[in-house]
């Protein structure tokens, strides 16, 4: 079996295993997996409203996945996507309602604010990693909590103690009457176009530019890159910041597209953590991330239909997602099994 086939088979098998274990969990808890997965399917594709909502759900996942994947490709593990996404969301929402500008300036400005906020939030772990060799995993986890509390306090301060900020002005909105009519008034918005552009930008940056080559080289081997005359610490900081920019834009999708404001949060959105799964499933390739985001966005949005239609708690979808991550991470064992199987086939022939 060629390496390429195995690379595609591992995630496919992981998804199947995740769905199978999910079905077993449903059986054990006294539900019909068939009803459950039909409800899931209908939640994704059932009607035009659900399709629109699924696309809306996929959009921030693309950004979260790109953020994690970009960091991974450059040798960093950014668990802080969640926090960077929250500050990006906050920044976009603030610019969205606090300024009065024509759309052609306002919308890009709000997106820029989110990108800058996410980038700055990632700058701290980047600098600490580059200058002081502090492990980015712990710092980014801590930064997530700081983002959560700081965002809540800022929302409170901005809104005079209320639970959420004002709605953004239309001039900063990504929503489109056209999508709303064709999808039965779902919250589908223009963000998915920006998401696809972001996928292409990341591909171009990593594969077609010198800077992208340097970033990947530093990720592969810092000593060799240093020896080759690259500025390792500068590249680490840059990689982290770019990752944060993607995450911040993911937050902008929620602020400018889906919700039009930001509310106080009692817990994390989960988008950032799911981004890890999205990136893994996409093998950290930009176009792979797009597929990963489509899968996870569909599962998440379709899952919302499971309590109504089949009476199954929506958490079953999180169980399936966690299992998929688990199986993708354990790809080694799947590879071993695949190799054994293909060897056996050869012998039989």
């Amino acid at each position, binding site marked *: 079996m060629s390496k390429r086939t195995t690379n595609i088979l591992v995630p496919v098998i992981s998804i199947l295993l995740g769905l199978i274990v999910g079905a077993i969990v449903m059986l054990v808890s006294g539900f019909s997996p068939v009803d459950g997965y039909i409800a899931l399917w209908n939640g994704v594709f059932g009607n035009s409203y659900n399709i629109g909502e699924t696309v809306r759900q996929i959009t921030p996942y693309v950004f979260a996945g790109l953020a994690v994947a970009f960091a991974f490709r450059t040798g960093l593990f950014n668990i802080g996507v969640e926090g960077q996404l929250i500050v990006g969301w906050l920044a976009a929402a603030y610019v969205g309602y606090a300024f009065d500008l024509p759309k052609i300036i306002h919308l890009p400005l709000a997106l820029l604010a989110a990108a800058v906020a996410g980038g700055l939030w990632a700058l701290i772990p980047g600098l600490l990693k580059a200058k002081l060799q502090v492990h980015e995993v712990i710092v980014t*986890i801590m930064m997530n909590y700081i983002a959560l*509390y700081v965002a809540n306090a800022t929302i409170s301060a901005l809104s005079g103690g209320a639970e959420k900020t004002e709605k953004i002005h239309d001039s900063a909105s990504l929503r489109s009457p056209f999508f709303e009519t064709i999808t039965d008034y779902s919250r589908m918005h223009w963000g998915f176009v920006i998401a696809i552009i972001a996928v292409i930008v990341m591909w171009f940056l990593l594969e077609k530019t010198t800077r992208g080559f340097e970033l990947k080289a530093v990720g592969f081997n810092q000593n060799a890159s240093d020896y080759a005359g690259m500025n390792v610490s500068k590249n680490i900081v840059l990689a982290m910041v770019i990752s944060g920019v993607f995450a911040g834009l993911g937050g902008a999708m929620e602020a400018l597209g889906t919700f039009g404001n930001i509310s106080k949060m009692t817990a994390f959105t989960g988008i950032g*953590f799911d981004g890890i*799964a999205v990136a893994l499933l996409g093998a950290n390739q930009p176009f792979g991330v797009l597929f990963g985001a489509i899968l996870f966005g569909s599962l998440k949005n379709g899952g919302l239909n499971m309590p109504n239609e089949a009476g199954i*708690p929506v*958490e079953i979808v999180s169980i399936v*997602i*966690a299992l998929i991550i688990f199986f993708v*991470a354990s790809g*080694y064992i799947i590879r071993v099994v695949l190799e054994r199987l293909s060897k056996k086939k050869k012998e039989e022939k």
Partner: protein
Amino acid sequence: MSFLEVLYFIIPSAIFYAAPLIMTAIGGVFTERSGVINIGLEGVMIMGAFSSIVFNLTFADSLGGWTPWVGLLVAMVVGIVFSLILAVAAVSFRADQTVAGVALNMLGLAVAVFSIKMLYDKGQTDSIAERFSRFDIPGLKNIPILGKMFFTDVYGTSILAIAVAFFAWFIIYKTPFGLRLRAVGEHPMAADTMGVNVTKMRYVAVMISGALGGIGGAIYAQAIAGNFSQTTISGQGFMAIAAMIFGKWHPLGAMGAALFFGFAQSLSIVGASIPVIKDVPDVILFILPYVLTILALAGFIGKARAPKASGTPYVKGKR
């Protein structure tokens, strides 16, 4: 309020909040000493909290005052079983340990909330009737100042946590098991050559962390939260990991760091009734432990480093 009164108020509360962190952080020390990173401690704590609350609600009538303590044992067993998932992935399947840990966290929360909805038909349990009770330690409570600070109205769980920290120090630094554990975490190949079973040591270490993390979650649920919902455990597992790093991968250091985090946490809760502190905005108190962890990692931690093999699967015969 005099300074001493503030201390009487805040020190017992700090120890109270620290107990679950101490337990879980020590669990983290065991896994990392064996060369496995356990980001999944949050998930383990969730499972411990969930199982102990379900047990407590179900058996409180028949077990009475012993319920929370038996609940700890139940949580310990559940923690061990749950952590086996990480052990299998990280040790046998050579999975990326951090990613497997992240999956463990997601799985723990999803399984717990799913089960709560199945059992009680709502997202949150009722409050438990049997909580850990407080008692005075005879004799010691009469010591001036210290008696009132440390030995009056004590929770048994706080004593247990501190005892476990010292016991863990003894195990890791004074027994052959501890020596093997550290050897496996520093240089698994050398340890293997000397006849230490790397796989077995790592499995045992992850299971110990599951046991302690489960107990930590159970203490948090049964002493502090009093019920279980999606947000009962939100970040305590990560705080425990931070305490472990802050404490330089040493059981007593981890305990010290956990006490400090407990102090920071209790400040944000009891601070409202203490002069000076009540004027500090809540958000500063909320983020304090996290900011301090980052500062500590960046500057004050000194030469301490993680066990050398931490995070890398051991592949026999590979140099």
